C-alpha cells in the first residue's frame, strides 16, 4: 500500500494524459467485471448475459458514432464505453426489459459523456448518470427484482413473474431483514443481477487495488465513511454492527464503491482531494439512502460529488497538513500552559501542594 502512495507524481502525470496508459486500466476493469457474470448466470440463467451484451453493444456503437462525429480516432479508449455499458447492465435487475438498460447506456454516452468532451474529460460519471436516468424514468423496472434461482429466458419481456423488493426496501422501512448476514455475503438475495456477490466483488476490489486501477485513497475513506455512518446512526433494530453490516452489503453500494467511485476521469487528481471525495461520496450516499425518495441513491450522490471534484482539488491543495499540524501543536501547547497556570493558581490559593501537576511544566 505504501508503495502506491509514494508514486504520487507519476500517477498525476498519467491522469493529465489518460490516453497514454489507460488501455491497460480499461482491460483490468473489464477483467474485474467479468467474474460478476458467474453469480448472475448461476442465479438467473442466461438472461443477464444477453442484457449485458446488448447494452455493451449499444454503448459501443454510440461511442464510436460520437467519436467519428467529433473527428477523433477510434482506439482503445472506446472500450471505456464497454465498461460503462457493463456497469449499467450489472446494476439492473435480471427481469428488466431490454429497453431500459439500452436507453440508460445511450443517455450515458450521448448526453453525459461526449458533450462534455468524451473520454477522460467528462465531468460526470457516465454509468452513474445512466443509472440515475433509468432510476428516475423507470423506477418500477429498476427497483423490483426477481427471486434468485429463477431461470429467465432471453425473451424480449419477462411475463408472469412475481417480482420482489430488495433488502434495501426493508431497510428503508426500518425493519430488520430476515436474511442473515452470511447469506447476504454469498449473494442469494433479490437484488441487481451483478451486485449481490459480495465476496466476489471484494476479491475484484483486491485485484483492482493491486493493479492500481482503483485508488485506495478514495475507496477506503468511502467504505469507512459508510461503515461509520451506519454504525453511528443505525436505522434498523438489532444493534450497530448489524446496521453497519446490512447497510454495507445490501444493495449495490459496494459494487459502486469498487467500480464507479474511483473512475480516474471524474475523481479529484490529488491524494487529499481523492480522500475528501471518498468521504463526501459515502456521506452523500448514506444521506440519500436515509432521506431520499429511492431506496438506493448512490448514483445521485456520486453525480453531486463529481460536480465538486475540481473544487475539492483546488481547496485542499491550499491546505498543508504539515503546517496545520505545527500550528495545531503550538495552539495545544499554549492551551496546556494556560491550563497549568490556572491549576497552579488555584492550588496556591487553596494552599495545597501543586506537585501533582508537575507534568504540565514540561510542556
Amino acid at each position, binding site marked *: 500500500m505504501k508503495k502506491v502512495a509514494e508514486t504520487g507524481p507519476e500517477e498525476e502525470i498519467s491522469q493529465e494524459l489518460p490516453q497514454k496508459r489507460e488501455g491497460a486500466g480499461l482491460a483490468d476493469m473489464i477483467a474485474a467485471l467479468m467474474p460478476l457474470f458467474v453469480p448472475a448466470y448461476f442465479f438467473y440463467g442466461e438472461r443477464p448475459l444477453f442484457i449485458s451484451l446488448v447494452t455493451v453493444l449499444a454503448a459501443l456503437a454510440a461511442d464510436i458514432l460520437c467519436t467519428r462525429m467529433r473527428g477523433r480516432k477510434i482506439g482503445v479508449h472506446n472500450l471505456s464505453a464497454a465498461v460503462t455499458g457493463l456497469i449499467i447492465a450489472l446494476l439492473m435487475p435480471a427481469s428488466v426489459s431490454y429497453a431500459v438498460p439500452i436507453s440508460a447506456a445511450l443517455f450515458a454516452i450521448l*448526453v453525459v459523456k461526449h458533450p462534455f468532451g468524451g473520454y477522460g474529460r467528462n465531468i460526470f460519471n457516465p454509468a452513474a448518470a445512466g443509472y440515475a436516468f433509468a432510476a*428516475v*424514468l423507470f423506477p418500477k423496472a429498476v427497483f423490483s427484482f426477481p427471486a434468485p434461482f429463477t431461470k429467465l429466458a432471453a425473451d424480449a419481456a419477462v411475463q408472469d413473474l412475481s417480482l420482489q423488493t430488495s433488502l434495501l426496501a426493508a431497510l428503508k422501512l426500518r425493519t430488520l431483514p430476515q436474511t442473515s448476514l452470511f447469506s447476504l455475503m454469498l449473494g442469494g438475495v433479490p437484488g441487481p443481477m451483478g451486485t449481490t456477490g459480495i465476496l466476489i466483488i471484494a476479491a475484484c476490489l483486491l485485484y483492482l487495488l493491486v493493479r492500481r486501477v482503483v485508488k485506495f485513497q478514495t475507496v477506503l475513506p468511502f467504505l469507512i465513511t459508510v461503515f461509520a455512518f451506519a454504525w453511528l446512526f443505525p436505522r434498523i433494530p438489532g444493534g450497530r454492527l448489524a446496521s453497519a453490516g446490512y447497510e454495507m452489503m445490501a444493495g449495490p453500494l459496494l459494487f459502486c464503491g469498487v467500480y464507479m467511485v474511483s473512475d480516474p476521469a471524474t475523481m479529484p487528481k490529488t491524494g487529499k482531494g481523492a480522500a475528501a471525495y471518498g468521504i463526501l461520496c459515502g456521506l452523500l450516499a448514506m444521506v440519500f439512502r436515509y432521506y431520499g425518495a429511492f431506496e438506493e441513491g448512490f448514483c445521485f450522490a456520486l453525480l453531486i460529488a463529481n460536480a465538486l471534484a475540481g473544487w475539492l482539488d483546488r481547496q485542499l491543495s491550499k491546505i498543508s497538513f504539515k503546517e496545520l499540524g505545527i500550528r495545531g501543536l503550538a495552539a495545544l501547547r499554549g492551551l496546556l500552559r494556560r491550563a497549568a497556570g490556572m491549576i497552579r493558581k488555584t492550588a496556591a490559593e487553596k494552599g495545597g501542594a501543586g506537585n501533582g501537576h508537575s507534568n504540565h511544566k514540561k510542556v
Partner: protein
Amino acid sequence: MDIQTIRRYKRNYSLLSGILSNNPILMQGLVLAPAVVASTTLKNGLALCICAFVVFLPTLFVVSFIKGKNQIPHFLRMFFYALLSSVFFIPAAFLTKAVFPSSVDMLGIYMPLLVVNTIVIARAEAVAVRSRPLVAVGDAFFHMIGFAVPVLLAAGIREYFSSGTLYGVLIDLNSRNLTQVNLPFVGFILFGLMAAGAQLISQKATPAYRKWVNKRIILKASAESTAEQQSRNSEER
C-alpha cells in the same frame, strides 16, 4: 451612405435575430424556469406562450415611448418595466383563463412569474428604449416566436411520451405513459439538446443571412445614391 444609415438598416434586419441567433431561451438562457417546468403538455405550453405574448408586446410598445435614456433614472426603470408588465398581466391572465381553464391551475406560480421576466428587461434595455414603437414591437414579436417554438416543441415531446397524446388528442395507443418525463430535469436536458441544435443551425445559417443583409444594404445604398444623383442632376438642370 453614412454609417448611421447602415446601422439603421442593420438594426431593422436584426429584428429576426430573436428567432435563432439571439434566441431568448436557447441562446441567452432567459425565462428558463417557466419554460422548463411548465412545458409539460401542448396546452400548457400554448397557455404560457399566449400569456407571454399578451404581456410582452404591449409592455415593450409602451417602453418604446420613453425617449432618451435619462427620462427615467436607471435604477427606477427596472421597477417601471415590472410594474408595466404586471398591469398587462391582468388581461393576459383573464385571456388565458378563458382559453385554457385547466392549464392555469397547472402552470401555478410560473404564469405570474412572467411579469418579472428577464426578456422584458433585456429587450427593453437593448432595443425598445432607443427605437421607434414599431421596431420595438417587431423585435418583441420575433423574440416571442423564438420563445414559443422551443417551448411548444418541448411540450409536444413531453406530452407524447408522458401520455401518448398531442393537444389532448390520443395518438399513440401503446404509449408507455412515462409520467416521469414531466420532471424538470428532463426539461433541462431537452432544452440543452435543443440549444445545441440551435447552435449548429445558427453557425450554418448566420453567415448566409449576414451576406444576404449586406447585399440588401448595398443594393439600397446604390439605389439611394442613384436617386440622389438623379435629384442632383435635375437640380443642376
